[in-house]
């Protein structure tokens, strides 16, 4: 328990499933998800913790997966984009991304979806500036960001027009 080890036993919940694994101490959470669990939706764009392509949800909060060791995730609840989409809670945003062409090469998109998805829980429509602030930690090189902002607005407008 208090002995430093190179291989760490971890038990965590990923997308609703309980996972038991033995991981190298140095392996970060994204590599664990991608290589050990085949969840390749989180991408590696830098491993410096800046580009945001590795964003996932840990205990309900957005985190940079490359800046979390798999060992540190012991006992936590992880949701990746695969789990989030499977749950259906982002369906509206997925539709909106498609309608607004808010993804091109798609490399940043899973992370962008999760990050922008946090805004959907708000009761009032965020301003364009607020949306931009929310996604500003996620690099996108293709869209120029505007379509992503449009997609979030689209969700709120859709809800409003359906009421």
């Amino acid at each position, binding site marked *: 328990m208090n002995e430093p080890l190179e291989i760490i036993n971890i038990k965590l919940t990923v997308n609703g499933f309980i996972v038991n694994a033995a991981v190298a101490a140095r392996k970060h959470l994204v590599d664990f998800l991608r290589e050990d669990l085949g969840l*390749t939706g989180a991408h590696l764009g830098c491993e410096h913790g800046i580009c945001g392509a590795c964003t996932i949800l840990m205990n309900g909060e957005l985190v940079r997966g490359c800046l979390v060791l798999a060992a540190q995730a012991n006992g936590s609840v992880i949701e990746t984009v695969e789990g989030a989409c499977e749950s259906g809670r982002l369906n509206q945003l997925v539709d909106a991304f498609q309608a607004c062409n808010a993804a091109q090469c798609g*490399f940043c998109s899973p992370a962008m979806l999760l990050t922008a998805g946090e805004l959907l829980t708000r009761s009032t429509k965020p301003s364009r500036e607020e949306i931009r602030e929310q996604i500003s930690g996620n690099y996108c090189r293709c869209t120029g960001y505007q379509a992503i902002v449009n997609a979030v607005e689209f969700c709120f407008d859709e809800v409003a027009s359906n009421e």
Partner: protein
Amino acid sequence: MLMLLNFALMKLPQMSKHKHNPLIEMDSSSYIGKSIPRKEIRRLISGQGTYVDDIQGSKIAHVVFVRSPYAHAKILNIDFELAKTYPGVIEIVKESDISQYCQPYQGLLKHLEGMKAVFQTPLAVDKVYWHGHPVIAVVAETRAQAEDAAELVTIDWEELPPVVNEEEALLKDSPLIHPELGSNLCWERKIDCEGIEEIFNSAHTVVEENFTTSRHTHVTLEPRSILADYRSSDNQLIITHSTQVPHMMHWVVSHLFSIPESQVRIIAPDVGGSFGLKIHVYGDEMTAIALAIKLKRPIKFIADRLESFLSDYHSRDHRVWARMAFSEDGKIQAIEMDDLQSMGAFTGYPRGSVNEARQIINLVGGAYDVPHYKARTRVAYQNKSMYGQYRSVGHPVACLVTEGLMDRGAQSLGIDPAKLRQINYIPQNSFPKKLKSGPTIENLSQHEALDRLLEMMGYLDLRSEQKALREKGIYRGIGFASFLEMSNPSSNTYGRGGVSIAAQDASTVRLMPDGTLFCTASINEFGQGAATIAAQIVADVLGVSFDRVRVSLGDTDIAPFGGDNWGSRGTGIGGEAIYQTALALKNNILDIASQLFTLDIAKLGISKSYVIKLGVGTQIISLEDLARIVYFQPEKYPSKKAPELSVTRSYAQKTYDGICTNGIQASYLEVDPEIGEIKLLKHWVVEDCGVAINPLLIDEQIRGGVIQGIGAALYEHCIYNEDGQLTNGNFMDYLVPMAFEMPDIEIAHTCTPTKTSNLGAKGAGEAGVAGASAAVLNAVNDALSVFNVHLNAIPITPQNIIRKLYKFYKE
């Protein structure tokens, strides 16, 4: 040709609201010109994309490179014996261990007079020529182990003086990077103009400036990635490659590795951005392929972000002196320019590293009626990273120079900058127009685009607002940038120079037994929407629902050979090939139907997956039933000539060097002069790409391009020190645009179809980048005009503004 002129359908979606929900099943079979959403977005954003690194397996081994820490050095000794013993290590190689697999290569365009280039090997041999030059490859079971082992490799170096200043590189006494070439000058082109000196001397107004655009790089979010697999039993190479150009790579790999082309397969899976990065040949990627052959194991190489900065091709490194002469009424009399490009240590293979310079000398002043033009461009070798094409190759620099001078001229002459442009555009009645620099422009819509832009912007109101705010000490600027963007290139770019890059594209469309359509083509998808465009064209021509067309791109085993994507050729050339293929298949289908039912083919059409009688609309036979007859019951088909339900056609643009597009951008921003901070308020683009197949996709391409151009204008710079070392090759120190600082971009279009194809589509992918930097630089200068300063370099950092404005910097 003319039957497609229903482009009145080209209703563009509003910026932030969509009046129609495009997710509603498209019932109509008219798709060309419609903003159809991309199917694959759902797959990509939900994490179901397959990028090269997503392909995993225990057989795959990983390669990591030991790279030169110096810009120029001799390799004295290499020792990797200890590294070889590290757990997980499979092999460690230097160049001599792989030279039997991969030939050296030379990036040379033979039709460029005087171009000088040497051969290059994937790994360095006796010398290293740039900071990051790969020397040793370490292969291990995991990337982490390979990196561990790489740290145990020791190399003894003897540093050599690096050549890192492009001006000094061309002086007589400069050390030579490649002594066998006799100089550091890679290529030079001059355009002379007799009598131009007198014109400048006697002109009413002459403006002059030294512009600098700083070296920067593509920064794709997915770094360069390759997975090479060699099947020794049948001498087959299968390479899964994050590439923009699988067909070019197909040819390159086959020839460098001496494996017949039919034995090589390149597959581009989902590609996480390219913008021209992934069209070049990289020594580290070639090494990965050599290792796959040598070790008979699949080898994966993923460039991490640090090595991306060091080893990706760089771009846009220019110093341009230019001047423009005007008459009193503002007509351009002459332009003279001298461009010096700083490239890398070797010419890029196979595209060379001089196309940027080529485009710059071709296009400075190009939008305007310029009676006299004198120019020179030189490209100098440097001990820096390899250099080559980045989206909108050369155009942004040509635009920055031209439009910067136009604004200077407007200021000196006291003429409104929009007006000055209007009076100088190439007159509409002079197309096609051959520029003094060589290219011929088919047709443009510059006056119309400008009018549209001024209206969209509310230009006069903005000027009033600017004036009112200036009195309150708030400094806003408006910057225009008219731009040309060449697209749909001919073989003049490469083929004529002996370079094996295709100038034609081909497509195959096949009617399946169930009446759906399968389409493949020699263009590729990397987020811009090529697959959607293809499906739209096929669905439109063949009268089927968009959902009944599947498109497969990027696999050289499936797609016919062709030119891939670069130079904004995908829709204009690839799309035309697809269009002609679909038309040919339609004709075959109607012919079959006319034979089966003894009907006049001229009276038949296809709608909603049925062959119909035109006019009346009676359904004759479903496509499925027709296909089933052809495939399963050919005895029912009367004619002796076998019916063909899988058709291949090709298309090449041979009329012009390239099909020129035009556009104009405007930037509205606010400068806080005390702290040099720029706030981007709004950006507009009016662009003409001829027939727009999918306005939504075009607009989003433009937006992405504008933001990249803004990145170049404000943030991006590969900073080399005096020793030739890249000092900021990481995401902490190399800045790219983030969402918070970026403006909304409003876009409109004018439409001047090209007559060189049935579709009439010109290219659009690069237009956003072409004018954005110039628009921003001009806007900053407009904002600061009251202070009587001019910025002439990008990126415009706060320090650059402060240096211009504050006395403590003026020595």
